[in-house]
């Protein structure tokens, strides 16, 4: 029997992804029998731990779900918490939160493009060999990461688990000198951004197309919707964020161990590619220009190009961040809005019993936080639905379509394994996040 016609792949502890996952594939005489992405991250029980604590601690604790998207969890958490207790944030607060979300997406996308995805495209096992072979690329990657980090340090205290972001606004607002430094750091990123575009334009992404449903926030406004909007689908369906359960429909699959989601079709994709496909026309002109250089047109049906769509969003996020910071330099910030709520010991924020949903476009797609609180603001119920969880079903559908084409091309099991790892990485899965609600099974 030909080796490439029957084989099993069992990739334990998939590397260069955030968190712990395994890929399992079985092919018998050219037929795909089994194909799944398993999650083996230790569950941490966040929804349980939050029960009985005050809503004023929800952001601090849920930020710790994930170090990479800590600012994303922060923003979804604050939105849900404020909706639950009935607080409307000021326009200044909302604008600053938009800025934070741009920086979050920029930082996370850069990490993924350079440290997690680029080694595959450059044909090496990690960034470590690149230090000798592509030293300039590594230095640029680290320099860009550091610049975005310094902007976040100035803005919210730090990027991993931001300090100043609280219910109602910020405990400290950036001073004029901070704004100037932030603007300079961001503008200084432009040459490196152009160099990144050149690098990506020179790389060959695998070709593979599988049209699917794309889900992202949508709005009637002119802004590329990230912080606010309805839940929209490429089918044209649209729901308010409070109806998120109808847009996710979590379900258990008999042959798989992970909870999956679907909406109008068998599976859907969230993340940079989905956002690009739905909202391309609202991107900053410089981002649309970058997309053109990379040959990206909506709809992108090749999941490997999610990495390229992330870069287009980097350009958008950078230009929008510069615009927001420069605006605040001109109009000034109202420092009277700074305040430290603590756990609301002074009852400065009126609290009522209620339920609130946050829906925010974080690096990997729509993140939902849902809290129910009692009349004292004590958390009674929590539900979080994570982008990576929503993508798992779609990743498996991609794997099922991709494996037979690779087998037909006569690829070796090693090549197939590598290509599947690349596919999973292209979605930039954040397994620390998703593990808190997925069913876990250890392979063995």
């Amino acid at each position, binding site marked *: 029997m030909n080796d490439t016609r029957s084989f099993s792949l069992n990739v334990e502890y998939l590397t260069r992804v955030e968190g712990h996952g395994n890929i399992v594939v079985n092919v018998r005489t050219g037929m795909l029998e089994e194909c799944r992405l398993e999650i083996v991250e230790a569950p941490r029980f966040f929804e349980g731990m939050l029960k009985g604590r005050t809503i004023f601690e929800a952001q601090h604790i849920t930020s710790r779900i994930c170090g990479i998207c800590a600012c994303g969890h922060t923003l979804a958490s604050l939105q849900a918490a404020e909706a639950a207790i009935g607080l409307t944030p000021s326009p200044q607060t909302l604008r600053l939160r938009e800025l934070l979300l741009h920086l979050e997406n920029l930082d996370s996308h850069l990490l993924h493009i350079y440290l997690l995805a680029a080694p595959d495209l450059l044909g090496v096992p990690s960034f470590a060999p690149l230090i000798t072979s592509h030293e300039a690329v590594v230095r640029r990657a680290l320099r860009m*990461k550091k610049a975005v*980090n310094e902007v976040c340090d100035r803005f919210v205290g730090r990027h*991993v*688990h931001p*300090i100043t972001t609280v219910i109602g606004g910020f405990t400290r607002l950036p001073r004029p000198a901070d704004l100037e430094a932030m603007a300079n750091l961001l503008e200084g990123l432009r040459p490196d951004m152009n160099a990144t575009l050149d690098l990506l334009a020179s790389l060959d992404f695998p070709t593979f197309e599988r049209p699917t449903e794309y889900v992202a926030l949508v709005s009637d406004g002119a802004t590329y919707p990230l912080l606010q909007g309805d839940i929209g689908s490429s089918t044209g369906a649209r729901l308010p964020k409070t109806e998120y359960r109808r847009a996710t429909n979590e379900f258990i699959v008999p042959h798989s161990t992970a909870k999956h989601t679907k909406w109008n079709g068998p599976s859907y994709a969230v993340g940079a590619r989905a956002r690009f496909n739905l909202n391309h026309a609202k991107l900053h002109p410089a981002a649309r220009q970058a997309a053109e250089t990379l040959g990206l047109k909506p709809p992108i049906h090749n999941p490997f190009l999610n990495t390229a769509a992330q870069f287009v969003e980097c350009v958008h996020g950078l230009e929008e961040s510069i615009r927001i910071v420069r605006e605040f330099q001109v109009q000034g910030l109202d420092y009277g809005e700074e305040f430290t709520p603590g756990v609301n*010991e002074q009852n400065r924020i009126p609290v009522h019993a209620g339920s609130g949903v946050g829906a925010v476009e974080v690096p990997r797609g729509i993140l939902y936080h849902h809290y129910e609180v009692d009349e004292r603001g004590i958390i009674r119920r929590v539900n979080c639905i994570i982008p990576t969880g929503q993508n798992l079903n779609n990743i498996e559908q991609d794997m099922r379509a991709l494996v037979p084409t690779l087998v037909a091309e006569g690829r070796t099991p090693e090549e197939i394994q590598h290509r599947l790892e690349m596919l999973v990485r292209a979605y930039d899965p954040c397994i620390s996040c998703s593990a808190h609600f997925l069913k876990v099974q250890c392979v063995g």
Partner: protein
Amino acid sequence: MKPRIAFFDFACCEGCQLQVANLGEALLDVLKLVEVVEFREVMSEKWQGPLDIAVVEGSITTKEAVERIEKIRARSRILIAYGSCATIGGVNGMKNRFPLDEIRRTVYGEHAHDFPTIATRPVDQVVKVDYYVHGCPIWPPEFIEVLQSALRGLPRFPPDHAVCVECKLNENVCLYDKGVTCLGPVTRAGCNSWCTNNGNICYGCRGLVSNPNTKGAMDVLARYRVPLELVLNKMAMYNACREQGKTP
């Protein structure tokens, strides 16, 4: 030969390894001194042999994790625990305040039996730890300092005075004077009062000082009429594993 070093993660958010990546180009200087043989989040390379230094992030929360950390300890000359989850249990410890079956049912409902878990423990309640880098997340300059000490074979003791000391040196207005409760008076310093510099309270992420001035702290609470229960509940956010000791 350069010292062999590997990074491992257990139950955590992986934010501390991100803090290491965030050192930027300074990271390259560190990397020149050592040979990084395993770092799953950013490297595909794996290593099963002996290690000079194991850098461990995350809490121990499953039976498999106990076996894994014991094996890592057995092949490592030096073990550094970094981040609150590893050094004191951190936010994962809040789980221990509920009966384990109850919290499993809260999160996973009828599928609770598929999620085996044991009480959260920091690394030193399972194996010996040689160096500590506290914090949620770690303060990067301290990580470099600890790594330098470990590479030189020098002892390094984490600061053992209260965050208030650093906060005063940074000339911040006391949070108690702003009418909110802060854990600075009992929490181990070494973060340069990161959170209070930014207008927020201290959440106690670095653990308690080894000999907290309980009477002084009680006086502060009395002066500002803060109920003890409020403070104890706050301390439990990061320090719930504190009383468990070393029983496996």
